[in-house]
């Protein structure tokens, strides 16, 4: 069971769990903003750029 859970964690989340966590937060923010008159399309692309860069920075310090 533990190995099964580990497999799915590695399969979906991968090396850096912070990337998945950051994306989840960005989705929450997007959904929240989409309920207001403010355009929300820009949140996810910017979040992807930020999350990816921060993850790369952790390796390339």
């Amino acid at each position: 069971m533990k190995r099964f859970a580990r497999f799915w964690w590695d399969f979906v989340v991968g090396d850096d769990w912070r990337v998945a966590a950051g994306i989840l937060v960005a989705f929450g923010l997007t959904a929240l903003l989409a309920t207001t008159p403010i355009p929300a399309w820009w949140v996810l692309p910017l979040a992807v750029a930020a999350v990816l860069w921060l993850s790369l920075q952790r390796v390339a310090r």
Partner: protein
Amino acid sequence: MGLTRGWRPALVGAGAATIALAAIVAALGPALTVIPIEVLRLVVGALLLVFGLQWLRKAILRASGWRAIRDENAVFARERAEAASAPRVEHAGLDWYAFTISFKGVLLEGLEVAFIVLTFGSTQGSIPLAALGAGVAVVLVVLTGIVVREPLGRVPENTLAFAVGVMLTTFGIFWGAEGAGVDWPGDDAALPGVLVFVLLISLGFVTALRRRKPAFA
């Protein structure tokens, strides 16, 4: 496995995994069609995005010199030596090592493909069409591999991984945002814009990381 441990257990393992994959797709495919499209796009988009970023992150690190480029020939030689030296245990008349490695390899790689086909098919409303596309792709890849093996072997693996990462991330952003309630400016016409954005930031990150002292020269 076929070369080092014999073709029979390797082919039986690959065949059993193909049957398991077909059962998973047959069970999941119809189930996906009853989920509301917005929910599906949100879940699929989030999964594709997380998945795509894993590919992209590794490809950027390799392209910028911060992670070693995989030497496919060395990996093949090492794994072949490991397979040849593994102890031989028989179950059901089969070399169990060859069977399980073949089964797991085909199932895991197949799951990745099945996931992409099911998600693309369900979000665009036609799983059979997506499955047909995947089938045609398999035939084309095999034929191309036979006809132009040498030139294809020179295409860097990391370039392919980079392209896959960019594509998965692009579709993840696009569908995920739609699922979260976003209206893209220009609707579907925004997709190429997202693709260009992901491509440009990825290339920019490669350039920025290359300027620092790389771990692997």
